[in-house]
């Protein structure tokens, strides 16, 4: 493993962690809304939240490119208003990872909320708690194990993200090169032997991550 390869590994870990942190608040909120509330259009929102799991990743990447590109509706606002460029920068990598791992977080957190007995929440209400307090002191702590497991899954997914990232961030050395993109590029250039150490490291990292997630979600909460 060269120094360059280690830099790629750390970059990938950083963007994956950042993207997971970014989707946590929205993911938890969406998961709770799906688990505990009904409203018109709920089925549509649920479907949209799950889409990145089923749509071909490069198609998702293309959609992101269209929205966040310099001429896209969101990209042009960000560029003109705040001077921030998304596509072909590390921000696009974070964006792609966030979008692709979002459904995993939502799905897992949603299950976690659904498993919380509504009786706890009801009793809390009779004891005078408003909805925010019920969420913060009852629903969230009791669902925390599942939420953490979801975050771990999201992180693992982000570590392995390739298709959408390739389209919206490109494979720019030292700027957007993740482990998966680097392995792909090495294979493309016929440098299979350079790809192998990265492949090994990425498998080890993801294995440890998913194992932790499994352990966390399998510990039964004392009830």
């Amino acid at each position, binding site marked *: 493993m060269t120094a360059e390869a280690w830099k790629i590994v750390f970059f990938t870990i950083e963007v994956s962690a950042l993207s997971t942190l970014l989707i946590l608040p929205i993911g938890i909120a969406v998961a709770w809304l799906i688990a505990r509330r009904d409203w018109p259009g709920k089925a549509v929102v649920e479907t949209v939240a799950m889409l990145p799991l089923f749509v071909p990743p490069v198609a998702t990447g293309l959609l992101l*490119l269209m929205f966040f*590109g*310099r*001429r896209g509706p969101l990209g042009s606002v960000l560029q003109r208003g705040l001077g921030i*460029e998304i*596509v*072909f920068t590390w921000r696009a990598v974070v964006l792609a990872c966030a979008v692709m791992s979002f459904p995993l977080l939502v799905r897992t957190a949603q299950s976690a909320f659904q498993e919380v007995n509504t009786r706890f929440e009801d009793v809390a209400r009779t004891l005078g708690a408003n909805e925010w307090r019920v969420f913060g002191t009852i629903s969230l702590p009791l669902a925390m194990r599942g939420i953490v497991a979801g975050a771990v899954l999201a992180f693992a997914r982000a570590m392995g993200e390739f298709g959408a990232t390739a389209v919206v961030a*490109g*494979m*720019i*050395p*030292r700027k957007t090169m993740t482990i998966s993109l680097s392995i792909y590029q090495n294979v*493309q*250039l*016929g440098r299979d032997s350079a790809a192998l150490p990265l492949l090994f490291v990425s498998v080890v990292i993801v294995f440890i991550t998913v194992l932790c997630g499994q352990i966390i979600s399998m510990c039964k909460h004392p009830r």
Partner: protein
Amino acid sequence: MKTRIFSLLFSVLIAASSSAAELTVHAAASLTDALKEIGAAYEKESRDKVQFNFGASSMLARQIEEGAPADLFFSADEAKMDALEKKNLLLPGTRRSLLSNLLVIVVPADASSAPKSAADLAKPEFKKIALAEPATVPVGIYAREYLQKLGLWDAVKEKIVPTENVRGTLAAVESGNVDTGIVYKTDSLISQKIKIAVEISAAEGPNISYPVAVLKASKQPERATKFAEYLAGPKARSIFAKFGFIVTR
């Protein structure tokens, strides 16, 4: 009666054996539009169909090495063809260099600023420069070697956004997501959404050469050779010239 049936069968067999064949040509992405037109013209004249597989010459060469079935290879640089020749994958005597091209620096059609020379690429206002992978794709190698010769490569290389082939570079510039890009002049002529900022003359620029050859693994070497000769012929040359290629003698 028997002879009549026999001769009928015989002529059907003859017709079957001289029926239309399908040739597979792996060709550099920059040749896309010109070769499609040439292929259509060829299909009218002979009865052979020509199937093209366009892409970066580096990727195509790799596919041929790995055994992808093809009859001809039309590369954007001599190096890729040399590599195949060394591996004994070419049909001897069929290799010839047909075309040359020029490099241009392009910007989106609505760009407010554009480089006036290659040296301008180093300026901070051009933050992203699209270029086909400079390590392997011919146009990327040509551009890199040219910029290295001018001593500009170190200043510019951090701004490079690598694309898969020259048409990917074109698309990136058209989308406006990069500030500028380097493509062949022939590619710039195809698109309305970009404009040429700098043309690198043949004298200053790299020596660009497009060779074609029949592959040894071809199952129809005579027909493939026939097509290769057609590519060097007058009709094809006029089409290449129309698209802006420099046709070499």
